[in-house]
């Protein structure tokens, strides 16, 4: 299955007299990491909500692959492969880590009625459960694709040990990781990450950027909005710099870093090397 490109075409969002997003075009191809930077109030967050479907644009459209998804609800976008994470990790605190991931993995279908009648494949009855257990003992465990994905993601992110921990009891760093894992389980074409490094220490941030690279190498497109300029510049393949609702520069990190407008507006206050430390306090 080929993965889709995410495109924003001429997006405009106004709040009264203020134009928060002003004719923004953006292309996020699969397998690449796209960064979105800009000072506070530049319209990053608004653009992000337009992409995720939390808000609707006044003009322009959002296209995933060949489909116009501008008017689609967030959950429909997610089922089509556009999955987001939140600034504040948004796990389901009463479910275990594994169940959190399962919710991520198993909701590409919408047929909930079968579950109501007790017919759903995952809503196994005790009988089918014991049959399954028997098969497992014989080494014939029938792992559905859904469970399989969850196990794979748990393994590859090193979360197997907390799989049965109730998510609400995890510390922030782990929450971020689990949320990321949950998004991966939804088999995204494009991942939208809203400040994934906030609340993480430098070591965790380094691990996160490794993880992002690995994920992108697997063919997933990633769009990342973060205040941590170091993180953004260290992992991205391309950057969009926003000021006052407009994209003022875009391209590979080096080009954007050296763009005069970006330097004057966003990076001017500090030398490049320590830009991250002087980033806005949150």
């Amino acid at each position: 299955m080929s993965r889709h490109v995410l495109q924003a075409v001429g997006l405009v969002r106004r709040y009264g007299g203020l134009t928060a997003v002003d004719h923004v075009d953006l292309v996020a191809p699969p397998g690449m990491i796209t960064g979105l930077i800009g000072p506070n109030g530049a319209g990053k967050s608004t653009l992000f909500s337009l992409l995720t479907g939390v808000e609707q644009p006044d003009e322009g459209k959002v296209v995933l692959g060949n489909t116009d998804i501008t008017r689609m609800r967030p959950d429909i976008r997610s089922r089509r492969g556009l999955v987001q994470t939140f600034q504040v990790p948004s796990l389901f605190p009463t479910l275990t880590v594994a169940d959190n991931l399962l919710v991520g993995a198993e909701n590409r279908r919408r047929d909930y009625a079968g579950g109501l009648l007790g017919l759903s494949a995952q809503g196994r009855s005790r009988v089918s459960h014991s049959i399954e257990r028997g098969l497992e003992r014989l080494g014939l465990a029938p792992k559905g694709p859904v469970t399989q994905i969850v196990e794979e993601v748990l393994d590859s992110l090193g979360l197997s040990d907390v799989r049965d921990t109730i998510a609400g009891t995890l510390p922030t760093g782990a929450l971020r990781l689990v949320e990321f894992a949950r998004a991966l389980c939804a088999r995204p074409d494009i991942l939208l990450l809203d400040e994934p490094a906030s609340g993480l220490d430098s070591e965790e941030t380094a691990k996160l950027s490794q993880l992002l690279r690995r994920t992108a190498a697997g063919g997933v497109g990633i769009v990342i909005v973060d205040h941590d300029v170091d993180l953004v510049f260290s992992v991205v393949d391309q950057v969009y710099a926003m000021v006052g609702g407009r994209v003022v520069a875009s391209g590979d990190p080096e080009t954007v870093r050296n763009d005069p407008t970006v330097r004057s507006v966003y990076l001017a206050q500090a030398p490049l090397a320590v830009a991250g430390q002087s980033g806005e306090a949150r």
Partner: protein
Amino acid sequence: MTSIDLALAGLSLGAIAALSGIGLLVTYRTNGVLNLAQGGIATLVAYVFREMVVEWDLPIWLAAVVALAVVSPGIGLLLERLVFRPLARRRASAAESLVASLGVLVLSLGITAGIWGLGARSDAPSLFPNSSVRLYGDSRVGVDALAELVMVVVFTVVIGIIAARTAFGRQIRAVVDDRQLAELSGVPADKVAAAGWAAGTTMAGLTGILLAPRFQLTPYGLTLLVLETFAVVVAARLSSMPVAVLTALGIAIGQSELKQFTLHGDAGQILTVLQSNLFIVALLVLLLAVPKLRELGSGDSGATASFSSRGAPPSGRVSGVRLRRDYLGKLGGGALLLAPLTFAPSDLRSAFTVPALALIFLSMVIVTGYSGQLSLGAAGFAGLGALLSLKLANGDLFGLPAIPGIASMFLGALFVAPIGLITGYPAIRRRGLTLALTTFAVGAVVSRFVFEQPTFATGLYLDPLSLFGWELSEKAFYVFELICLGIGLLVVRNLHHGRLGRALLALRDHSEGAAAVGVDVRNLKLLAFTVSSVVAGLGGALLVHSSYSFSADDFAPLQSLLWFTAVVVFGADSAAGAIVAAAFMVTIDVLAPAGSSTLAIGILALALGWMPGGLASAVRGGVRLLAQYLADSFVDPNQRAPRPVPVRISAVGHLPATTGITGSTGIPGIGSTLGAARAGHYARWPLSGNQLGLPADAPRLTPFGASLVAMVEQYAAGQTAVARQRQATAGPDGAPRPAVPHLSRADAGTHPAEGGRA
């Protein structure tokens, strides 16, 4: 009467509604709590006032001073100190405060009904003389209306000035924004909150005293009247006092103006209902029309997760022990439910109500406990189910032929589904407070326009139920009820398990997060509401058959509030809790005077501040603590190494808003027993050594544990010897099944180290 006269006649009611609205707004803007108990407090104060004037013969002015300057603010101060301050201290969600105020409502209803009974009293004294002033021409306006208007204006202006111009007003805004932060900045938050409560309850008392002489004084009736004035604060979007006042006057005058019209036929009937129920209709219309209330704080995300703290049933393997325990619990519960079959006929008849009520409670578990929506309209659905099934049985519905009793019940319940679906639509975009009020308004409108209307709800007769030509005896009917309850439980089980169950819990825990990974939030909400309405409808149909009559009072809007509180008290996410709640209420009402169950539920609801998650959660926690205590007396807690958490813990990170979950972070080095006990449930600390994968010498036993193990092993060794002896005597073939070696093996496995040492 001319339009002007009618308008003047409506003024007084409008002014009273405005006073009620001001009271609600004052409490809300100072505490962030929409005080649903306003009606209950108003009624209580009105009864106290009447008692003082009529029974104790106090002069009216003195009684008024006592009621309004002592009793009313006293209630407010007490509530703030005992109920809402603890909630604010632990930053309880808006949903929890809402439930607490429901608890207060139920408690005040219980107190009023307990002391003065449920009967109506028409001798409530009036605060103002019953005279009127001539305005011009023949138009006259009552002294009471004038006085009330003056009060409204004075209060609005004074409160407006305090809020906008004084330091106290600034302090109020600071406290409401962030109580803890305000305190750190030196604002006496508790005093501000207490002042807000005292002012709010005083206005409530005033509303009650003014309303009582205009209508009959009954606990439920007066309370509902005050609840209807919520239309006013919704129009004000919970913030603007002038808008509230103008809306109150507008609706009251509009209602009064309707009296000059007469229509015939169905329209006429609707008009007649509107002439006295414009407030409740306005409440529903406004809730549907006003896009968003200006809720304080972050609104209501995580709506009800805070009082339904239990997660999904395990999706992986279930241990045999746990399975056996589950089955044992279910068998025990089933046996208890069958017990009434041995009762005397009259007691059996009382027990009829239990399964019916339990079904209605289950419907609330579905919507509130599992999918996280606050729904206060259960009585409406139950009543509709009852009415529709009766009409089907009577051959009186849409020209359908008469359908036998039992089939009509199920069909009638199914017919409620579309109404549940429609009610679910507002839930897609609304939640928390707004949704709670919307569902309440739906229930109230249904009650006023359907249940209380003679064309719909009279002339219905209840035939005895029969199955295949056999008339159901009382015992058979009870069994039938249990079967219905079983069906309900099955539905609830399916809603709680597997993919559907996880999706619903995800929706409850974090609806945006759920949508972000593709959970169909919209359809799931609709599904929950629809299924819930059908279950409630079936419960309602059973309720009517168990009480042998349809009464609008059984399905009055206030019932929804009482029932909802009961469900939350007994654990909103617990199906067993729903059944226990039903049994509890029915038992209390049978054993104690009528209305006692209301009082009991109210008292328990106030205790929610100390036990989030309800009784069911408290019981679960108690069992857990006990288990941990036993484990601690067995294995030295300081020697039990905590389970390693592989993901590094960030020191900068704050714990996210996972309200309601008590638990430790799993940080290594938690030494405390209690910490371990809490973590025990969530992190699933294995108690036995070999599962933990610790080195063989890790779990050092306490002296008590060591002696216990020694005892067990001694016993086991003795038994083994006995068994061997028996085996030897019985010969190789007829040996009895050697259960004892099995035991000793298990024991040795659990405590490898001790086994070696002993």
